[in-house]
């Protein structure tokens, strides 16, 4: 593996410690330098100056010093995409990379984009719901940044951002949830509507019909102005906690009313994962989603749950290309994915149903 691959695949703490239902949580802050145009309107020279100033300040912050900094324009396309797959940067960030830099820590729990749509997009991650710890961490970085750079701030509007949907706190908090039982029991539609009515955004992937793929949903705050950081985080925490309760309840219902169906689906999914030679990303996600459910329900050893998160990352298209050190076409991806999964699930013990 090359140096990039080593940085990408170094043990992400994120995947290791897990709780049921929550896949990961994130807080992101958007900040801009007061004396420059926003990224979309700035000239190359300005972007360069912004990048230099930010890099200097960031690399003097203890947890960021001596960590990875990428000049995005130096990377290959699949390398850039693998960073998106790992959530270290955004899709938009890799579209225009002339003066963009990406900082991230070895544990993959902190990353900072320079010259995304805002000059600075700073984010921290965790595998649980501890928003207090996350906010303390990002807030300390933000204090360091705002003590050393002239940040665009207005008493009325708060932190000024390139898009008015981020103005104010400039904060977006989000949680990725795994909700298979709410999908199976068809309660997910109502839940999504209810959450949206509360002013939160739900994103998910849907297949044909309303069958969800992988049953992964991301919930984040929509509003950033007129609320304090604590307001936003405590409301999000409350909503997430009740969604977790709904999901756990739905799992009990599925176990009570559809146990044979559940055994059958989990059993078949493991069969596919152990026997496949060519598997699309979507089929793989659905099967792995069922394996996660199986570990949560005690049908597989709990210790597997973190490994499942990691293997799910590893079978993303661009990750496999980094692993192989070359571009792969769609078919080659499906074959390589099957190979990784076969090997991984051969070592997984047999299901132990109640």
């Amino acid at each position, binding site marked *: 593996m090359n140096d990039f691959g080593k940085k990408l695949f170094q043990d992400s703490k994120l995947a290791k410690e897990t709780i049921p239902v929550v896949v990961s949580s994130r807080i992101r802050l958007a900040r801009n330098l007061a004396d420059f145009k926003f990224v*979309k309107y700035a000239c190359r020279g300005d972007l360069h100056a912004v990048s230099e100033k930010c890099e200097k300040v960031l690399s003097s912050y203890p947890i960021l010093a001596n960590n990875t900094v990428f000049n995005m324009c130096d990377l290959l396309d699949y390398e850039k995409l693998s960073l998106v797959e790992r959530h270290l940067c955004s899709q938009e960030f890799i579209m225009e990379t002339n003066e963009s830099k990406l900082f991230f820590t070895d544990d993959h729990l902190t990353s900072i984009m320079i010259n995304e749509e805002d000059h600075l997009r700073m984010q921290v991650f965790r595998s649980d719901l501890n928003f207090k710890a996350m906010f303390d961490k990002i807030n300390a970085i933000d*204090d360091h940044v705002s003590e050393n750079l002239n940040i665009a701030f*207005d008493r009325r509007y708060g932190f000024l951002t390139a898009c008015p949907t981020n103005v*104010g706190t400039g904060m977006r908090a989000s949680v990725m949830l795994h909700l298979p039982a709410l999908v199976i029991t068809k309660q997910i539609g109502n839940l999504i509507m209810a959450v949206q009515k509360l002013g939160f955004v739900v994103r998910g992937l849907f297949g044909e019909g309303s069958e969800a793929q992988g049953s992964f949903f991301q919930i984040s705050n929509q509003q950033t102005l007129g609320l*304090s*950081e604590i*307001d936003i985080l*405590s409301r999000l925490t*409350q909503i997430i906690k009740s969604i977790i309760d709904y999901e756990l309840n739905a799992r009990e219902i599925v176990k009570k009313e559809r146990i044979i169906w559940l055994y059958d689906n989990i059993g078949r999914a493991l069969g596919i994962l152990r026997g496949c030679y060519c598997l699309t990303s979507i089929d793989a996600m659905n099967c792995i989603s069922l394996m996660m459910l199986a570990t949560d329900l005690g049908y597989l050893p709990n210790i597997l749950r973190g490994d499942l998160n990691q293997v799910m990352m590893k079978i993303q298209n661009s990750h496999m290309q980094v692993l192989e050190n070359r571009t792969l076409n769609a078919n080659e991806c499906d074959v390589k994915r099957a190979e990784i999964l076969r090997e991984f699930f051969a070592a997984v013990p047999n299901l132990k149903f109640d």
Partner: protein
Amino acid sequence: MMEKCQFCGKPATVHMTQVINNKTTVIRMCNECAAKHGLFDKEGLPFAMLSSLGEALFSGMKQNLPANGLICSKCGCTPMSFKETGRLGCPNCYKDLKLLIDGIIESSQKGMIHKGKYSRGRSAESAVNVADGLPNVFPKRHAKKLSMEERLEELQEMLNAAIKAEQYEEAAKLRDEIKTLKGLS
């Protein structure tokens, strides 16, 4: 009828829904593009949304606002260029395009006035409401009593300025804000 992938035109099998301000947008993708664009956290908006974002925000604001003659004196950004890109040009836009921005904020945000952290670590919480949800609390220096008084003083200043400039709607909002804050302390 088979829907087409918005990225490459192949048959779409994945439908991604996104809701902004109660407006639902569906993004259709083929398996390949869906895999390429990732199942995960897109950090903000999926990029297919970006071009239509300005439009979406625009349609949410009041049509009769006299925002058309506005231009930012620092960067040249206008309501039209915002409509095209969905992005403002510079911090000064918030001053020169205030009319446009207030319309957008009113239709998409919770309130008109910042209640969160202050820059340069001066104070994090103007509305100190730590009671529910999160366990106590963020760094002490951000919850200083002083910050609340400072904030009230500032709001009072802003209120006086608004009255002087005969911006009565704004003044009313500021007055509400001051009332809320006083209620909290």
